[in-house]
């Protein structure tokens, strides 16, 4: 079955960790997960300057691994990202900011990416804060 996930919880919240565990379990069960959309505080997942507390799992790294192993697209909503201090190189240049901080494996795009995956997906599971 084709799943889509919507993550609006921030990376340090429990629901963010659950989204990752859910993604892993869905792929392990043979389902497909073409895209995860990070929206609201979930946009903070794309921040490369983030370090998890010691001895705690790195949610961002977990997603990057699923992206590499299963081709899961990690899309961060641009409007949510800009409001929360996550910027790719293009935006940083346009806004004359000193640098960008988008983590490898994540892409920044619009809400169309959410609407589009909903047209394809058989199930969408949401992980709110």
């Amino acid at each position: 079955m084709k799943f889509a996930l919507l993550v609006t919880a921030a990376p340090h919240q429990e629901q963010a960790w659950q989204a990752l565990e859910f993604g892993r379990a869905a792929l392990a069960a043979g389902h497909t997960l073409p895209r995860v959309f990070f929206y609201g505080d979930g946009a903070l997942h794309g921040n490369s300057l983030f370090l998890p507390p010691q001895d705690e799992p790195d949610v961002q790294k977990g997603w990057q691994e699923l992206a590499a192993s299963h081709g899961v697209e990690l899309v961060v909503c641009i409007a949510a990202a800009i409001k929360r201090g996550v910027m790719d190189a293009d935006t940083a240049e346009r806004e004359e900011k000193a640098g960008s901080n988008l983590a490898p494996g994540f892409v920044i795009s619009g809400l169309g990416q959410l609407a589009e995956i909903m047209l394809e997906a058989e199930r969408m599971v949401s992980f709110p804060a």
Partner: protein
Amino acid sequence: MNKASTLHILSKNTGALTATLLRSFSENDGLLLTADGVYAAFACGTTLPVGTQALRADVEARGLLPNWPESIALTDHAGFVDLCVQHARSLSWS
């Protein structure tokens, strides 16, 4: 296992949230307690639907296993995925 039904996923514990969820709950729907939603199993005066499940890791971490009600089955993320497949749609309450 009802194809037209909704899986409700509760991840917070406030009386108002649980009350609205229960009012929106149809006969063949399912309920999964996750994160702080597992505390709803102990809310005084609230009866959760028959067949309600909960994520074991979240129950265990919170120290709720010793008094956990037998009527609420414990599951894991693989079970969570299965529940999503069995129901036609999911609704996350937080």
